[in-house]
């Protein structure tokens, strides 16, 4: 008799997903899948709209990291209005966008670590679900919960002064930005009362990195072996190899650190990356064309970025980066739970970059937009909090969008998340006589490490709304249990 376990919905991730695990007669896992069960359709209904609407329209994909879509679409439109890529914008235009982006990275990473992931670390994967949530954290670890809330607020307010609104702003427009940063706005962040200033944010980010390192020392086996598997890694890097979350060239490395995609221009991404469709999920499976569907899949996100980058261009984060790299002797880090470590180092980097930008007088200048010769096609790429984000548009002579292709960060991590689920299912569920809630949460912990944004935010608090269904070999439901 085949047994089917369904985890639906997967909780403490952004969006709706479910996991199915099939067991054979002996309780061994024969198949496991992460299904994305929602359908959005943005690529279709953006067609026919004027191109300058795209950055504002497409960001509605998400309420957690809309800035990523806003900026990726704006970058594609920069190409279309002839402003070029990357440093083609005015200094104020590019730096305002960078500030917006680092505010976004900061708040999103903080949200994930403090609100979504920390309950698993602070209480344990198999702790009572009634306390294993952000409310439980707020009750027992008040300081950590408050830090998480205040750090997120800081990032959101950076977004507000650059994009116009904390969520779904309009700041980035084709060829630049629609506002600069006033001295008053700047001083709020540089010299705001404790804790709402950028120095405190850097200090708290450093504390968070140290918290994780301490946790790692105490739980080395869990952090180093849980859902660890070899993979390729892909991200943007600056042309000199530095980590750059806003702009750069595409680099991919294999599991040994060998470059398999050599710093190519994002405008040419279609030459190197393709997507496979599978009939059991609305999420596609991207892969490197040269290596095929079987071997060409890759990981994106904080772990991949720390693996592909040669260095981080901010001093405190660079110091942490060196320690991170030393842990694997300079080789790529393939441990899923180290994603948290990498994410917190990036949080520190984002805080340092915000400080650098806030001190930059270019943000007070008035040269906001640049335009050149209009073309009909553009690609905008950046490193969103969850990984590499691709936006590709074609526009007709009447300024209407005729084609849009979006490969979002979580899509890039589709295969890795499925493999992570399989790793955990094999190691923790296979052959067990009894399937506990803790075991099923372990599957979710593996998915959560990738901070997937399955669409707009949806969070289940309190008792995990987990439904387990048992099917016989003819797919008849024989038992159903809701915890």
């Amino acid at each position, binding site marked *: 008799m085949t047994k089917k376990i369904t985890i639906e919905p997967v909780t403490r991730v952004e969006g709706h997903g479910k996991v199915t695990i099939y067991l054979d007669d002996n309780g061994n896992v024969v198949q496991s899948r992460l299904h994305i069960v929602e359908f959005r359709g943005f690529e279709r209904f953006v067609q*026919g709209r*004027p191109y*300058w*609407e795209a950055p504002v*329209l497409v960001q509605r994909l998400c309420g957690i990291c809309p800035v990523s879509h806003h900026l990726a679409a704006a970058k594609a439109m920069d190409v279309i209005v002839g402003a070029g890529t990357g440093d083609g914008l005015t200094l104020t235009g590019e730096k305002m966008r960078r500030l917006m982006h680092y505010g976004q990275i900061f708040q999103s990473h903080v949200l994930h670590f403090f609100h979504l992931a920390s309950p698993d670390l602070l209480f344990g994967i198999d702790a009572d679900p009634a306390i294993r949530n952000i409310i439980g954290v707020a009750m027992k670890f008040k300081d950590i919960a408050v830090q998480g809330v205040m750090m997120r607020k800081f990032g959101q307010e950076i977004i507000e002064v650059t994009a*116009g609104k904390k969520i*779904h702003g309009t700041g980035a*427009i084709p060829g630049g930005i*629609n506002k600069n940063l006033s001295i008053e706005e700047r001083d709020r962040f540089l010299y705001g009362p404790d804790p709402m200033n950028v120095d405190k944010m850097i200090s708290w980010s450093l504390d968070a990195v140290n918290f994780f390192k301490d946790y790692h020392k105490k739980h080395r086996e869990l952090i180093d072996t849980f859902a660890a598997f070899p993979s390729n890694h892909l991200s943007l890097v600056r042309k000199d190899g530095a980590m750059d979350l806003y702009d750069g060239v595409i680099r991919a490395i294999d599991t040994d650190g060998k470059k398999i995609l050599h710093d190519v221009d994002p405008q040419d991404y279609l030459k190197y990356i393709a997507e496979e469709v599978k009939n059991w999920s609305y999420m596609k499976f991207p892969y490197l064309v040269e290596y095929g569907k079987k071997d060409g899949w890759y990981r994106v996100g904080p772990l991949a970025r720390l693996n592909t980058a040669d260095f981080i261009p901010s001093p405190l984060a660079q110091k942490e980066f060196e320690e991170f790299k030393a842990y694997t002797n300079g080789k790529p880090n393939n441990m899923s739970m180290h994603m948290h470590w990498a994410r917190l180092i990036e949080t520190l980097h984002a805080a340092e970059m915000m400080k650098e930008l806030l001190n930059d007088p270019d943000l007070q200048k008035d040269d906001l937009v640049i335009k050149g010769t209009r073309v009909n096609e553009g690609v905008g790429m950046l490193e969103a909090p969850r990984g590499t984000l691709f936006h590709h548009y074609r526009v007709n002579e009447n*300024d209407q969008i005729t084609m849009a292709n979006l490969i979002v960060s979580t899509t890039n991590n589709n295969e890795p998340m499925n493999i992570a689920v399989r790793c955990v299912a094999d190691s923790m569920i296979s052959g067990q006589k009894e399937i506990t809630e803790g075991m099923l949460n372990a599957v979710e912990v593996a998915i959560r490490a990738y901070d997937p944004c399955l669409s707009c935010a949806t969070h289940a608090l309190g008792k995990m709304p987990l439904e387990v269904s048992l099917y016989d070999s003819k797919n008849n439901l024989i038992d159903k249990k809701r915890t």
Partner: protein
Amino acid sequence: MSEKIKFTIDDKECFAEKGQNVLDAATDNGIFIPALCHIRGVKPAGACRLCNVKIAGRLMTACTTPVESGMEIENDIPEIQDLRLAIIEMLFVEGNHFCPACEKSGNCELQALAYRYQMMVPRFPYEFPVKEIDASCPKLIIDHNRCILCKRCIRSFKDENGKNIFAFKKRGHKLQINIDEKLSANLSDEMAQKAMDICPVGAIIHKGKGFDEPIGTRKYDKVPIGSDIESVV
């Protein structure tokens, strides 16, 4: 000097020039009566019906009704307010008004009225009509999804040579604004912006200008529609 006449709106004593319409007279007395089709100085059309007021127990459009001496007008009463809200709701459900991605958001009079009248969920079902976008003009886009057929553009916009470039085409529920392809091809940027500004919604869009006005500086970001009129007296 023209003759002044006396009348009341909601029992408030008001004065007007003889021959003025009720809407303009109310405005001059610091009383806001909403309208989406009316432009002062342009012959009223009574198209949007939002300016309905009650005179001697009858509903009358304020823009097309001349004010008379001793007239007693009811404006800010629950019946009228609900009627106006219903009309706003109808305008929303009859078109495809997606404020989140509309560049007129913050400057849109329909959106501003929906806020002022606290529209939540429309009482009517959404029609989600299939509408087209006419983007063939080099300077303008006509987005029929957002057009409320108020005729402001037809009645008040002329190109540099004094010629009308907007007109109605088709009939009944298929009625839509048409833009003269040849004449509109020569519009200057300044005139294209003027056409966009005349439109109370986001149906006429000046190409390539989208979202260049930051949130916080748009017309209705800080104050509700009508507050400029109400603050005068």
